[in-house]
């Protein structure tokens, strides 16, 4: 009983500490912490349309996070979310440019699928490099992120640049407004809640089902825990490593397509950096996944939390006129505090158990 309370209290306490830190910074910036909290809550959940915006913000995090879960569960460290999002976005953009007149019922699934293909390819490359050429995936995914940024700039200012930008000579790296038939339908009129949100949730559920309910996931997890034992049991380790990265990348790719055709303005645009298009979802998705204990379903609320932090931060800046950087710093602090609290929790529970405060048999099925 007390252990359960500790289990719940410690992370909560960590969150409170993190917010206390945030409050201190707000005071230092001459703003009222209460007003700050109010603004953040209001920005994230203040109205139906804001809740919708939070969900929309969480969408790429859910997708990338679910993908990260698949990779990490196979013991492949995928830091390539940024590149995979971009690859998916580019692929879906090219498809929408090529077949603008297809009816929406075909084009919408098609752009999502091509996003998955694009991201999948960018995941498969480091996956195969790791499996077949022993190239460390941390290195290759970080490097491929850099490659994709430049490839994106190349395409957006070259082959698929908005013809108007070329004509006007302004050459903003963006495409023309893409076919409306590819637009993800809005689900609730007057909000930004689009079909991408349920797609992401469905993808996370699918990731869960794949990992824990299918033979494929069984093999991925087996490879993740012990490539040697998996191999001796007849599982093709190299192929499964490649598969894990491909699946992981394809989820990131779907996020890219959703950004273009749902969350952003029906066109791909960047300031020349990865974050300029992705909003760092490729990194934040890792955080969401780890925060959700590398479980695809827990990634959903975890991503919502970070989505709320991000949308709340916009409001914070707008209402209190404090720099957006405050929210970023706060974000980092929350991650640090909460992640440090998890072991502390286990430790407290253990030492309380050791000190005899708990009846030992209560947590060991009466085996004593």
């Amino acid at each position: 009983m007390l252990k359960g309370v500790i289990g719940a209290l410690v992370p909560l306490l960590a969150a409170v500490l993190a917010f206390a830190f945030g409050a201190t910074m707000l005071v230092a910036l001459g703003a009222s912490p209460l007003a700050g909290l109010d603004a953040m809550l209001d920005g994230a959940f203040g109205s139906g349309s804001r809740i919708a915006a939070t969900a929309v913000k969480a969408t790429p995090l859910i997708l990338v996070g679910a993908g990260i879960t698949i990779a990490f569960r196979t013991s492949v460290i995928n830091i390539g979310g940024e590149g995979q999002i971009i690859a998916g976005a580019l692929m879906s953009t090219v498809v929408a440019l090529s077949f603008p007149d297809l009816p929406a019922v075909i084009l919408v699934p098609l752009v999502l699928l091509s996003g998955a293909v694009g991201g999948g390819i960018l995941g498969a490359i480091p996956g195969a490099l790791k499996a077949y050429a022993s190239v460390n995936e941390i290195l290759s995914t970080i490097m491929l992120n850099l490659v994709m940024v430049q490839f994106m700039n190349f395409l957006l200012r070259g082959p698929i640049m908005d013809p108007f930008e070329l004509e006007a000579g302004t050459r903003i790296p963006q495409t023309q407004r893409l076919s409306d038939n590819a637009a993800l339908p809005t689900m609730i009129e007057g909000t930004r809640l689009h079909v991408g949100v349920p797609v992401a949730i469905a993808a996370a559920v699918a990731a869960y089902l794949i990992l824990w309910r299918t033979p494929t996931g069984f093999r991925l997890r087996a490879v993740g825990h012990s490539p040697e034992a998996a191999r001796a049991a007849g599982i093709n380790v190299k192929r499964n490593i490649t598969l894990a990265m491909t699946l992981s990348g394809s989820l990131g790719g779907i996020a890219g397509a959703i950004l273009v055709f749902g969350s952003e303005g029906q066109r791909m645009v960047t300031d020349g950096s990865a974050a300029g298009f992705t909003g760092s979802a490729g990194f934040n998705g890792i955080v969401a996944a780890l925060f959700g204990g590398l479980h695809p379903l827990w990634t959903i609320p975890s991503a919502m939390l970070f989505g709320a932090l991000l949308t709340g931060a916009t409001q914070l800046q707008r209402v209190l006129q404090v720099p957006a950087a405050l929210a970023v710093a706060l974000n980092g602090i929350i991650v640090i505090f909460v992640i440090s609290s998890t072991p502390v929790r286990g430790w407290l529970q253990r030492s309380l158990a050791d000190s005899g405060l708990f009846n030992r048999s209560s947590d060991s099925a009466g085996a004593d």
Partner: protein
Amino acid sequence: GGDDEAPASGSGEGGALRVAIVAPSASDDLAFTQSMVDSVNALERDVELSITDGTFIVEDAAAAIRGYAEDGNDVVIAHGTQFGASLMEIAPDFPDVTFVWGTASDTQGLANVFAYAPAADQGGYVNGSIAAALTKTGVIGVVGPIEAGDAVAYINGFKAGALAGGASEVNVTYTGSFGDVALAAEAAEAHLINDVDVLTGTAQMVVGAVGVAADAGVPWFGTQANQTSLAPSLVVASQVYHWEVVLEEMLALRDSGVLGGQAFEVNLANGGLVIEFNDAFELPAGVRDAAEALIEGITNGTVDTGS
């Protein structure tokens, strides 16, 4: 729509006009965003200003734009080309709010949207011609971010001006990033080794290149905002955006009940573009006069900047 009824002059305290800016980079970036903040502050009327900056992401910017409109601001400035699509969605929902969008050369047919764009090539042309007068080697270097936006217009204008002014070569390096200061610095170094003795550049990462120019004692030309503070003795001149010139026009229209629907350009002629000389840098005799004459020529259309 309340188009036919002139809106109150301001909804802020004491009738101050409530203006909000949503912009992609930092409000004190000595470049694009700062130019708009400075301009709003330079407006002659009483303004209550809110800023959301560092918001390149369209999605976040859209949330901020909508939020400002909901909060009852009179004017919301969406200071970034990429925000156009969001305005298409948001502007119709707030017919009493004036949205100001740039840099853009049309209003997408929206009745409560004004658009603005700079003729950055004009200041570039002037800077280029002065640079040509200063170079001894005849080779001039340009450090650009990625080949996009008003950076392109400025650089193309600069190039044309320099070549027309007698420079033999203008080498342009796009580093591939708006933010990588280290690469910008090395790009400047690379120019220096290749006989470049005058430099210019655009976007926020040029602060790295200015430092290199300053150390090497090479004259520098700025754009977007007055960059003299970065190298007080070596910045020759900066092309500065005075958006307030067109903003005043827009506000006057708003006062008269026209909430949008027109596009504006800042240029040397309307005073929206100003070449601000650094008096601490001593130009050779005649160069400044030639530059003034050139400005005059561009203003009255006798000089073509080539773009």
